[in-house]
């Protein structure tokens, strides 16, 4: 049974993507493109960046989602004390998704196109910054609008910087299968953090996040998916960059602790090592390990013998439940390699390859959810940046 109209909720929206964009705007000096300035003052140069993402995931016996995403980012300093940033992203999504657990039969196929834009403004002061931003994302069944506002303050020597941000978004969901109509979702995000320069070669940052979501939080394209209408999330993110004088390379380490009111707890460890070579080449291997517990209302693929899948044993109609693989307990690992080359004065190209695998028995601190097929993904990213 193939449901053309149905589609997986995954790629409907870019909340974290937009969240990162907002973060990019909320956190000063976040530029990361070639020739960018340090956090405490406006960037010296403007830049334009073109990127292309090619994503594919699958499980044994089923090719799942394919995504192609061209994107453009522009950054421009203004009058030495302002920075304006804008992006345009176009996701072309197609493929199939299980309607419950990792069941191949009945997987819904879909194709969709999502366009997202965002703009942000940062004002630089001698000892701090203020920023504001707006983001919009639109596709056939999901519209989202978000605003963010934040600021930072540094000590006189600029070795310690505190920052805070707030974000608000309003989403409207109109799934093509019409299980709901004009459903709303509201999100409030708060963040507090501190950056500390420890040595000439070390910088650390700690960020605390608190998010409250209210409204329609279920996945309308999955069977028996009925989630609570509220979710609070807390995160603690610790990051450290260390430059090795011997090799001239830089290690970038991060750890994130995540917990939410759906009883999910997750740990994320990530590491990358940036190694410059002569002639403008840079090679960056990366690794990431992730583990999560299951949501309290996630149910395993133990189906009722009378009703059959996806109905679980002892199911009470109308109760809170979900067969979504993303809410199960599992561990996941990513290995990646990025190669960059400065090709002309102020132009840099980059190529990144990542391989991702998700398995229930890779879970740490507990057992993984049984009965789910592993998930594999392959990611390619191409980019070119020009600064002026």
């Amino acid at each position, binding site marked *: 049974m193939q449901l053309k109209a149905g589609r997986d909720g995954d*790629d409907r*929206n870019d909340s974290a993507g937009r969240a990162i964009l907002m973060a990019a705007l909320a956190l000063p000096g976040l530029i*990361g493109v070639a020739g960018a300035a*340090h956090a405490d003052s406006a960037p010296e140069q403007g830049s334009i960046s073109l990127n292309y993402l090619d994503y594919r995931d699958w499980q044994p016996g089923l090719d799942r989602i394919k995504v192609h995403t061209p994107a453009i980012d522009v950054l421009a300093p203004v009058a030495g004390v302002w920075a304006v940033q804008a*992006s345009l992203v176009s996701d072309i999504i197609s493929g199939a998704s299980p309607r419950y657990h990792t069941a191949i039969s009945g997987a819904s196929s879909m194709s969709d196109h999502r366009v997202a834009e965002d703009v942000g403004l940062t004002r630089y002061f001698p000892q701090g910054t203020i920023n504001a931003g707006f983001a919009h994302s639109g596709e056939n069944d999901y519209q989202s609008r978000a605003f963010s506002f934040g600021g930072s303050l540094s000590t006189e020597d600029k070795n310690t910087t505190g920052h805070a941000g707030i974000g608000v978004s309003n989403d409207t969901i109109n799934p093509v299968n019409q299980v709901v109509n004009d459903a709303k979702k509201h999100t409030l995000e708060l963040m507090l953090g501190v950056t500390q320069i420890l040595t000439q070669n070390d910088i650390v940052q700690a960020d605390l996040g608190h998010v409250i979501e209210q409204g329609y939080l279920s996945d309308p394209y999955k069977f028996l998916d009925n989630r609570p209408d509220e979710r609070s999330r807390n995160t*603690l993110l*610790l990051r450290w960059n260390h430059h090795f004088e011997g090799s001239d390379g830089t290690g970038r380490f991060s750890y994130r602790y995540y917990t939410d009111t759906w009883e999910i707890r997750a740990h994320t460890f990530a590491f990358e090592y940036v190694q410059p070579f002569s002639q403008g080449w840079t090679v960056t291997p990366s690794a990431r390990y992730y583990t999560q517990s299951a949501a309290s209302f996630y149910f395993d693929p133990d189906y009722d013998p009378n009703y059959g899948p996806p109905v679980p044993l002892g199911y009470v109609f109308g109760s809170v439940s979900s067969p979504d693989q993303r809410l199960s307990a599992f561990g996941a690992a990513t290995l990646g390699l990025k190669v960059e080359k400065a090709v002309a004065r102020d132009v840099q190209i980059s190529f990144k390859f990542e391989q991702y695998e998700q398995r229930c028995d890779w879970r740490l601190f507990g057992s993984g959810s049984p009965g789910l097929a592993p998930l594999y993904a392959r990611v390619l990213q191409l980019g070119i940046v020009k600064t002026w």
Partner: protein
Amino acid sequence: MHVRAALIAALAVAGVSGCSVEAVKPWQKGTLARSEMNIEGAKPETRFDEHIYTSREAAAGGASVGGGGCGCN
């Protein structure tokens, strides 16, 4: 509970270690000015990676604020 302990630890480390060694002077920030030493990564790459992970895992965010709700659930 764990978050509070971790926060105290993070602040303690940041505060104490930042002071127990000589504070870094303005002219010593050449290495820190390199793009790979920026705590945030390159925006397009970070956006792509974060979008993929929030679409396939339950945890989301941590580095940012303000993005919309998650259609990713």
